[in-house]
């Protein structure tokens, strides 16, 4: 272990000294893009579309590597620990990264400074949804039912301290209700759980189920955002419905490990931003129901810092309940 750490240190020192030369030559070999969630999930789908587009500008193959587990913690750890030479990048999902850092029990091997947020790709607002033939026709129905039977209605997340978990906590706080929270691992499990009747309501993101809401297979009750989703124009927002504090979304963007030379970061930013802003990207992401939200440089860094404050409150609350 000591040996390994020493090698890493030596490697990063070497990188720092040699950085101008590296940037001129960067990238000379294939780049790895770590995704902290399983293949086939919506983070993965977006990442694969982005990788395929950005590798044209970067001039090197970008390989998506799925390191799923522990609500993204395994993958994020991998990104934070990677050699900061620009050849290992990763997708950071916010607020997943924030909550992992904020929960002492998770003993995260990284903190908010471990990543350089480079380019954001997606902002996927939260969606509260039920089965298509559920008796809950609106958010009001759901809240009323939850008030009648406190702690009985089963609401599922995509993992402890995920954005979906925080959204449930926000909803509980705003509507003064109490759900029985069931933690699943993925949107797929939520779907199987709700369609199979094992849980009553899912707190999820628009991108995971947009097709199924459009088809009527599931019913969207509310989008947890300030404005309606362009994919689901008929689903009201929590703000419209009188819960302006229930605002939650998941953002996904490309980050580099701390210590990556600034000029290498610039090369990555340029290539990925160009790919994200292309017409082809918009068309492909529309097809899978993921809303693009390009952010880079100072704007992304500010978002990254602001979110930390918001996440802190609910994470502390969640930890108290545990």
């Amino acid at each position, binding site marked *: 272990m000591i040996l390994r750490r020493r090698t890493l240190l030596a490697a990063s020192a070497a990188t720092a000294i040699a950085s101008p030369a590296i940037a001129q030559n960067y990238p000379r070999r294939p780049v790895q893009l770590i995704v902290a969630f399983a293949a086939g999930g919506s983070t993965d789908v977006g990442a694969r579309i982005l990788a395929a587009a950005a590798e044209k500008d970067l001039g090197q193959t970008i390989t998506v590597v799925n390191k799923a587990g522990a609500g993204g913690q395994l993958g994020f750890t991998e990104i934070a620990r990677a050699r900061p030479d620009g050849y290992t990048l990763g997708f950071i999902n916010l607020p997943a990264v924030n909550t992992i850092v904020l929960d002492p029990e998770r003993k995260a091997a990284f903190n908010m400074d471990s990543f350089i947020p480079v380019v954001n790709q997606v902002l996927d607002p939260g969606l509260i949804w039920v089965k298509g033939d559920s008796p809950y026709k609106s958010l009001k129905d759901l809240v009323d039912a939850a008030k009648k039977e406190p702690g009985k209605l089963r609401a599922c997340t995509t993992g402890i301290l995920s954005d979906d978990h925080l959204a449930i906590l926000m909803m509980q706080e705003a509507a003064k209700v109490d759900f029985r929270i069931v933690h699943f691992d993925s949107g*797929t499990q939520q*779907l199987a759980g709700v369609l199979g009747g094992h849980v009553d309501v899912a707190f999820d993101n628009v991108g995971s189920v947009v097709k199924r809401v459009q088809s009527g297979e599931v019913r969207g009750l509310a989008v947890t955002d300030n404005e309606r989703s362009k994919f689901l124009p008929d689903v009201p927002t929590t703000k419209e419905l009188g819960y302006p504090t229930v605002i939650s979304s998941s953002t996904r963007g490309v980050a580099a490990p701390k210590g990556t030379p600034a000029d290498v970061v610039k090369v990555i930013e340029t290539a990925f931003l160009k790919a994200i802003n292309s017409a082809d990207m918009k068309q492909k992401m529309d097809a899978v129901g993921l809303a693009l939200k390009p952010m880079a440089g100072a704007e992304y860094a500010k978002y990254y810092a602001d979110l930390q404050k918001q996440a802190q409150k609910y994470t502390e609350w969640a930890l108290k309940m*545990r």
Partner: protein
Amino acid sequence: MEALNHLLAGFAAALTVKYLLFALAGCVLGTLIGVLPGLGPAAGTAILIPLTFSLDPTGAIIMLSAIYYGAMYGGTITSVLINVPGEAASVVTCIDGYQMALQGRAGTALAIAAIGSFVGGTLATVALVAVATPLATLALKFGPVEFFALMVAGLCLVVGLAGKNMLAALLMTVIGLLLAMIGVDPVRGAPRFGFGVEELYDGIGFVPVVMGLFGVAELLLAAEKRQTHMIQADLNKWMPTREERRASAGAIGRGTVIGFVLGLIPGVGAIVPTFMAYVLEKRVSRTPERFGKGAIEGVASAETANNAYANAAMVPLLALGIPSSPTIAVLMGAFIINGITPGPFLFQERPELVWTVIASFFVGNALLLVLNLPLVGLWAKLLKIPFSYLCAGVLIFCVIGSYGLKQSLFDVWVMLGFGIIGYLLRKLDFPIAPAILALILGPMMEKSLRTTLEMSGGSFAIFLDRPAALVLLAVPVIVIGALVFRPGTFSKLRESDTD
């Protein structure tokens, strides 16, 4: 009837030269992925996705599906020949397949695996055509509660049918479960039992453990015997005899049913059906003592269940858009990238595509059979290599396989360490399979139990409210109860020995 018309049109498309070539290429690539250890079907399929970008969606899906089936079959080859499962679902095949190879019947084992895979895969696809949507919806009723009960039943049956080694099997199961606990807590996300070793954060890798316990342990045992040739095989006799065919027919039938049913349930994974089919086969056999010593039914049942599962797992994907295993999730990602969203509306929106793909499942299964039967002799020839070379080759294979998965040297040490442990266990006559099954099922079991308790607010009474779970939990109670309290009931089983 309409479905049949669609299917015929699908066949017309799938049988064009272009799509046949895609299917063939997929089968070959998939077999390679299956043969290479450490490169499982999920990783292999993911790597090959970009290859399909330049194809049209139908061609891409046909090729990826073929890769998936090919990989499921490819793992058999190394399991039989060198006792190293190329992918998780082939673990069970090692038990009797390798014993058959030691007896010079490697060709027969591979042949029956190919035949079983073909029958299981084809029948599962027929069932897919007939009843996809209603069955998939029904399977959704199988939630975390039933899932946990299924896992418990599976583990208990493996222990209960271990014969005279029951106590040893129980011990090995518990050890497997304990090993499975290492890593991140699946609900709270807190790391545990890692003793500060960063590499253990992600748990103990399944592939290095299996390669060590099976492959390396086998090398150590074989080296002890100073063999010059690992196996003397008569390569011309690979066609199963009439007796072997008769013995396998029932196993193939039962394997198909088990594989298909479990394939419908999201999250079961490919290994559970193979274990279940194997255990059932041993249970119904008149000569269970042959199992673990080269029983052809053991190979036939596991391999059939494996492929029936692979095809049935397409049902929840195509009918509901729910991927039931990591490999299927990768496949689903590929579907989406190629502009196809699997789900209930796929059949209405893109019938020509769905039915062509389904038709190509039939074609792919047939191609695998045609491809593999003539190659059986070629594969089996590998065993003619002098032992010293083969031994070195297998060891290199294991090192590369365990390293390649995560590019981690730690995994190589794990593999070698478990090789020595496996060698000692074999010397002490402890069964290895229960530990492996427990290691794989452990995390799934734990997660489903904890989800169940979240659903019930912490009450175990939830198991009493769910009839399916109750029935599943009753099976092991009865079997083990009978073994403990009325030892005579299964006397013939107790003479036998599961490895």
